[in-house]
């Protein structure tokens, strides 16, 4: 693993990769619900017949994609994360999941990505609701390398898939050629605490692990990106864990920590578990001032997480 800090938006990396694939395969169609990206401008210009903009109409976007997929098109549908998951949930449930159609929903703005836009644009429930659908896989992307890999993986998938992208550019944790087939990656070894993080919070988990060293606490860090969880790989990864802390920029009910709790319970692994995420008892966040300001209010800043872990240790 490297921690090369090149800031490339995962959205552009993803769409650049889809563009490359679509140049070779005219069966690829991108359906956009009035969403753009510099990489998509190029797609629209060069491959206009494979690009469909439906306007602000996510229900129709998913329905069209189902019809296209039934006719053997390889479809990518693109919108802001809460809109492509919540607004058209039933269209996805009945058609993409129910008929097991190879459509990739691409949502941008995981968590508080659209921090300045307020709660309408925050994606805080999408992992909960998408991971419970039959046949559908959720891939929560950590960095640009992973985004490029999942453009390719999505293209080859024979079932529906939700790719959850961050809006912001994040440092690269992975390198080209890394294997994502296990659905999770152990990024750091440590024996005192096992931190499981997903998406943008993987970067926070790595910072927290570094900080914990000051307190003589070594932390294992697992990046969990594919849902449903690959149970065999997950159980192997947490085999020696004394305590587990999950960190996500997502609601606690049904989120990644909830998915971890399900796997632990189903496998009679009685390991103490602390879930850190958005506590719904505090409600939606109508506060502004930037991403880190919001995270501090909700206990997702580095210091609060370090403190929560140290409290757990005692």
């Amino acid at each position, binding site marked *: 693993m490297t921690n090369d800090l090149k800031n490339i938006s995962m959205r552009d990396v993803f769409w650049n990769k889809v563009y490359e694939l679509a140049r070779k395969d005219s069966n690829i169609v991108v359906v956009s619900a009035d969403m753009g990206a510099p990489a998509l401008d190029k797609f629209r210009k060069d491959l206009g017949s494979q690009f*469909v903009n*439906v306007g602000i109409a996510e229900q129709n976007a998913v329905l069209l994609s189902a*019809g296209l997929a039934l006719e053997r098109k390889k479809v990518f549908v693109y919108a802001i994360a809460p809109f492509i998951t919540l607004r058209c949930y039933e269209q996805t449930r009945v058609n993409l999941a129910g008929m097991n159609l190879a459509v990739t929903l691409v949502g941008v703005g995981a968590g508080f990505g659209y921090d300045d836009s307020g709660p309408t644009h925050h994606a805080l429930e999408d992992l909960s609701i998408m991971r419970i659908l039959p046949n559908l896989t959720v891939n929560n992307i950590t960095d640009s390398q992973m985004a490029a890999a999942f453009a390719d993986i999505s293209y080859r998938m024979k079932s529906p898939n939700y790719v959850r992208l961050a809006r912001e550019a994040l440092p690269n944790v992975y390198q080209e050629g890394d294997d994502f087939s296990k659905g999770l990656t152990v990024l750091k070894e440590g024996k005192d605490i096992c931190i499981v993080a997903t998406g943008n919070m993987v970067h926070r988990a790595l910072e927290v692990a570094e900080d914990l060293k000051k307190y003589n606490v070594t932390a294992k860090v697992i990046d969990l990106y594919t849902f449903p969880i690959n149970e065999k790989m997950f159980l192997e990864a947490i085999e020696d864990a004394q305590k587990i802390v999950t960190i996500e920029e997502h609601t606690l009910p049904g989120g990644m920590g909830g998915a971890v709790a399900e796997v632990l319970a189903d496998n009679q692994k009685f390991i103490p578990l602390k879930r850190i995420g958005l506590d719904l008892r505090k409600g939606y966040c109508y506060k502004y001032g930037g991403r880190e300001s919001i995270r501090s209010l909700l206990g997702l800043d580095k210091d609060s997480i370090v403190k929560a872990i140290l409290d757990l240790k005692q």
Partner: protein
Amino acid sequence: MSDRIEKLKQKANYIRNQVLDMCAKAGTGHVNSSFSCVEIIVALYYGGILRFDPRNPKWRDRDRFVLSKGQSSPLLYAILADLGFFPEDELNRFNQADGIFAVHLQHDVPGVEITSGSLGHGFGIAAGMALAAKMNRDLPMVFTLLGDGECYEGSIWETAMFASHNRLNNLIAIVDRNHLCATDFTENIVALEPMDEKWQACGWRAININGHSFEEILAALEGFRSRKSTQPLVIIADTRKGKGVEFLSDAPLWHSLAPKGQEAIEAKEELNEKEND
């Protein structure tokens, strides 16, 4: 009356009997919603409109028929069985543990294109199929049958605008305008009229017909494969829910019920009297 029309009428009556039998036996199924569109679907399958091959249900060049109002599935199942897509005996297993289908439409039944039951979905899927055919420069036509109550769903109008903007003239929508939802007449719930003007405003060519007249259905579809217009076509078929059996007709309370016992016997008698008229 021409022989062709007479044969279609006989087929419609036979299919109504089949629907009634399968639903009465199973004790469930939307008989009323099926009876309103019998002539429409019979015209498509037996009137030389749709291209299909029961021995090869996924034949690539088939025309697509997307039943968006999935509650009329008993009707489509009875027709597909009659045409030989699957053994007719399956109709006796409607909603049974060893059967392959029940009240709403299921995509894995031979001859069926999509799963349908939640309304406002099939139309958009049909548009996606029509778009794919345009992209591939393929010739199949895509037909879809909507319920009028289904047109309350906002997604219908998202798709309607999209289809005309993208000139999907290979897409033909038929609205089963039976004037009833589950609880009341549409004009009492939230008025749908003027229905044709709504479609026209979305860029469609709209035709109003009597949906129980084979002559009018076939006339509306005259030359449908070689239409010059780039507009998609909607046929608003005025129908009667429960058509064929008087006590079922225009009766909101029968929406999701199947006649049983003596009621089923009376309904059968009425259908058979009509055939003998």
